[in-house]
C-alpha cells in the first residue's frame, strides 16, 4: 500500500514538473522517459532472465531511425503510427537476432548482442544513401493524436503536449512490464535466471522463454528510441554505438537490476547526474567510471538497494 502511494506521488510529481517553470530540466525529463522504457526492456533480459545484453543500443537506434525515416522520408507525422511502427520494426529485427543470441548465455550472449549492435552501427555509418551516414537523418516534429500544435514553438511543444504524451507512454509501458514481470511468464523467466537446468526439468522451455524476453526487450528499446529522437531532432549512428549500450547497462546497475523500478531510478539519476557533472568537469567520464566501480563493488543492488528496506535486509 505504501509503495503504491509513493508511486502515485512520484507520478504526480513528474506530471507537475513542467509547472515549475524550469524549461531546461523539463526537456531533460524527455530522454528519461525514453531511457526508462529501454532499460525496463533490458532488465527483463538481465534482472529477470539473467542475460546481460550489450546490444541495447541497437533497438534504441532502430526506434530513432524509424522515427527519422517516417517523418523526414515518408512524411508520416502521426506519433501513434511512429511508435507502432518502431515497435513492429523492433519486434521484427529482434526475431533473427534473438534466435541467434539466445542459443548462448553469459559472456557469449553479451558478445553476440554487442556484435549485432556494432553491425547495425556499421550499417548506419557506411550506407550513406540509405541512412545519411555520420550525418544521420532529421526527425521532424510529430503530430500527437492528429494535432500539430502549430501555435507552440518547439520548446513549448516538448515541455507541453509531448511531455505528457511521453509520460503517459512511459506509465503504460511500465504497467505492461509490471504485468509481464508478475505473470507466470515472468516467474518462468526468474526460474531460468536462478537455475535454467531445473527450469527445463520442470517443463519450462528455456530457450523459447529467453527468446520471448528478447523480443519484448527489443520492442521496449525501439519505442524508447522514438521518444529519444524527437527532442534531439536527429537520428545519428552514435545511438547504435557500443558506448550507448554501455550507458543503458550503467543505468540498470546504478538503479539496481534486482528491483523492478531500479532501472527507472538509474535512468533518472544518470541523466541528471551527467547533466551536472558534465558542466563541472571535462573528466566526467572518469567520474562516471568511478561511480560504476563503486556501485559494482560496494552497492551491487544499486540505489534501490538503499531505498527499499526489504532489499536492504536482503529479502
Amino acid at each position, binding site marked *: 500500500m505504501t509503495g503504491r502511494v509513493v508511486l502515485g506521488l512520484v507520478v504526480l510529481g513528474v506530471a507537475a514538473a513542467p509547472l515549475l517553470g*524550469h*524549461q*531546461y*530540466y523539463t*526537456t*531533460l525529463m524527455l*530522454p528519461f522517459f525514453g531511457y526508462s522504457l529501454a532499460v525496463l526492456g533490458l532488465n527483463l533480459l538481465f534482472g529477470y532472465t539473467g542475460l546481460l545484453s550489450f546490444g541495447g543500443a541497437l533497438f534504441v537506434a532502430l526506434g530513432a531511425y524509424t522515427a527519422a525515416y517516417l517523418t523526414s522520408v515518408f512524411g508520416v507525422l502521426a506519433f501513434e503510427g511512429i511508435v507502432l511502427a518502431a515497435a513492429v520494426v523492433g519486434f521484427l529485427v529482434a526475431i533473427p537476432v534473438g534466435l541467434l543470441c539466445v542459443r548462448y548465455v553469459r559472456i557469449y550472449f553479451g558478445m553476440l548482442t554487442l556484435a549485432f549492435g556494432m553491425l547495425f552501427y556499421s550499417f548506419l*555509418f*557506411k550506407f*550513406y544513401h540509405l541512412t*545519411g*551516414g*555520420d*550525418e*544521420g537523418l*532529421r526527425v521532424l516534429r510529430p503530430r500527437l493524436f492528429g494535432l500539430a500544435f502549430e501555435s507552440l*514553438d*518547439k*520548446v513549448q511543444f516538448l515541455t507541453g503536449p509531448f511531455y505528457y504524451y511521453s509520460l503517459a507512454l512511459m506509465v503504460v509501458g511500465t504497467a505492461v512490464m509490471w504485468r509481464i514481470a508478475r505473470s507466470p511468464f515472468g516467474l518462468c523467466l526468474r526460474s531460468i535466471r536462478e537455475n535454467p537446468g531445473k527450469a527445463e526439468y520442470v517443463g519450462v522451455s528455456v530457450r523459447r522463454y529467453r527468446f520471448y524476453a528478447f523480443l519484448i526487450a527489443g520492442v521496449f528499446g525501439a519505442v524508447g528510441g522514438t521518444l*529519444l529522437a524527437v*527532442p*534531439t*531532432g*536527429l537520428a*545519428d549512428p*552514435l*545511438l547504435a554505438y557500443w558506448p550507448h549500450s554501455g550507458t543503458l547497462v550503467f543505468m540498470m546497475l546504478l538503479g539496481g537490476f534486482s528491483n523492478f523500478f531500479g532501472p527507472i531510478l538509474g535512468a533518472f539519476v544518470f541523466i541528471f547526474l551527467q*547533466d551536472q557533472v*558534465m*558542466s563541472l568537469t*571535462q573528466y*566526467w*567520464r572518469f567520474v562516471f567510471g568511478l561511480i560504476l566501480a563503486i556501485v559494482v563493488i560496494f552497492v551491487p543492488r544499486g540505489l534501490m538497494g538503499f531505498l527499499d528496506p526489504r532489499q536492504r535486509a536482503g529479502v
Partner: protein
Amino acid sequence: MATTRRQFLELVGGAAALATARLDTAPAFAQATPVRMGVLTIKSGIGAQVGEAGLRSAQWTTDRINKAGGILGRKLELVVEEESTPKDTVERFRKLALQNKVDVITGVISTGVSLAIGPVAEELKMLWISWDGTTQKGVEETMPNPRYSFRSTDNECEAVMASIVVAKNWKGKFRTVAGINPDYSYGRDNWQAFLWIMEKYGNPVTPVSDLWPKLGTTDFTAHVAALQQAKPDLIFSSHWAGDASVLMKQAHAAGLVGNTKFVFVVAGGVHETLKKSFTPEGMFLGYNTIYFDYADASPLQKQFVKEYNDRYKEWPVFECERAYLVTSAYKAAVEKAAKAIGGKWPTTDQVIDALEGLELESLGGKARYRKDHIPECNFYGGFTTYKNRFDFVTIDPVVKMTGPEVQKPSGVGLKDWIQSWKV
C-alpha cells in the same frame, strides 16, 4: 513610515549623481550584468586538441575585449559546455539557452553535431555562431536560409585550395591517385572535390585506391599496405587530427615516402606533430585559415601567436582563428547594431542583421559574413620544407587564397561552381 530629512537628501543625491553620470563612457545598460557567451567545444577524444586550441583562443579574445572595456561597457563572460554526441550536445545547447540564459552560443566543431544544432538554434530563436561546424549534407547545404544559425566555411574549402595548387604546380607529374580520408562526410566531401577539380584542370587522374579509415584510427597498417600495393603517384588525405601524423609515420616506415607525392589538405591543424624525421619535404600541407609563421601576418596575428606561444609553449592552429573570428564578430555586430539604434543594447534580431555582411579583421586576415550566414576567410597552405628553426616541417612559399577563391557562392552547388571556372 515617514522619510527622514537625511534619507530624503540621500535619495536626491543619488538621483543627482545618476543624472550627472557621464554618458559617453558607457550606455545605461552597462551596469553590472556581463554579456554571457556559451561555448560548445570538444574536450575529449580525437578532437580534444583542436577543441582546446579554440577554447584558449576564445578566452584570449574575451580577455582582450574585456581589457578594452568589454562590449558597450559590459564584460564578456564565457560559459563552457562540452561538445560530444549530437544528442548530448543538443541537450548542452538547450542548457546554455534555457538554463544559463546566455546571450549567444558559439563553438561546435563537428558537422555531424552542427546538423543537429542548426535546427535547434532556429527553434529556440537562439543566436548560434559556429566555430567550425557546417550544416552541409555531403557537399550541399541543408539550411540555405537560416535566421539564427551562422555556420563555418564549407567543409571542402581546404580541399579546393589544395587541389588548385596541386593541379597548377604538379600538372602532368602524377596520374594514379589514392585517397585515404576519415570515414565521414568531411573526408568524403574533400575527396570528391579533389577528383572534380583534377578533371576540371584537365589533369586526368586514375583513382587506384580510396580508403576510409575511421576517424581517430591509430593503426594504419592495413591501409598503408593497400597503398603500397596500389603504388599511386599521389596520396590525398584530409586527416586533421592526431591521426594525420600517425598515418605519415607509418607511411614513412613502410617506405612510401620518397617517390610518392603527398597532399595533406588540413594536417596543418596538428603541424607540430609532423616532425622532420618522418614527414617529407615538398608535400602539400594545408593549414586552413591561419598560418602561424606567416611573414606578412598582421600585427594582430603576430601578437596572438607570440602570446599564445609564450603561454602554452605551442604554436596556434586554425581553430584558434575560428574562435577569434566568432567571438570578435559577435562584439562587432553588437556595436554595429547599437550604433544604428542610437547606442541602445540591440535585440538578437538586430545583432543578426548586423552580422550579415559584417567585415572584420580576423587572425588570418580580412573576413566577412555573407548574407547566407557563412563566413569568407583566407586559407593558407604550401609545400613543406625543413628550412626552419623547428623540429617539424613548415611551408615555403606560403600560398594564400581568399574566401571567394576556395568557397562556392551562396546557393550554387559545388560541382556547378567548379564547372563554371575558367582555367
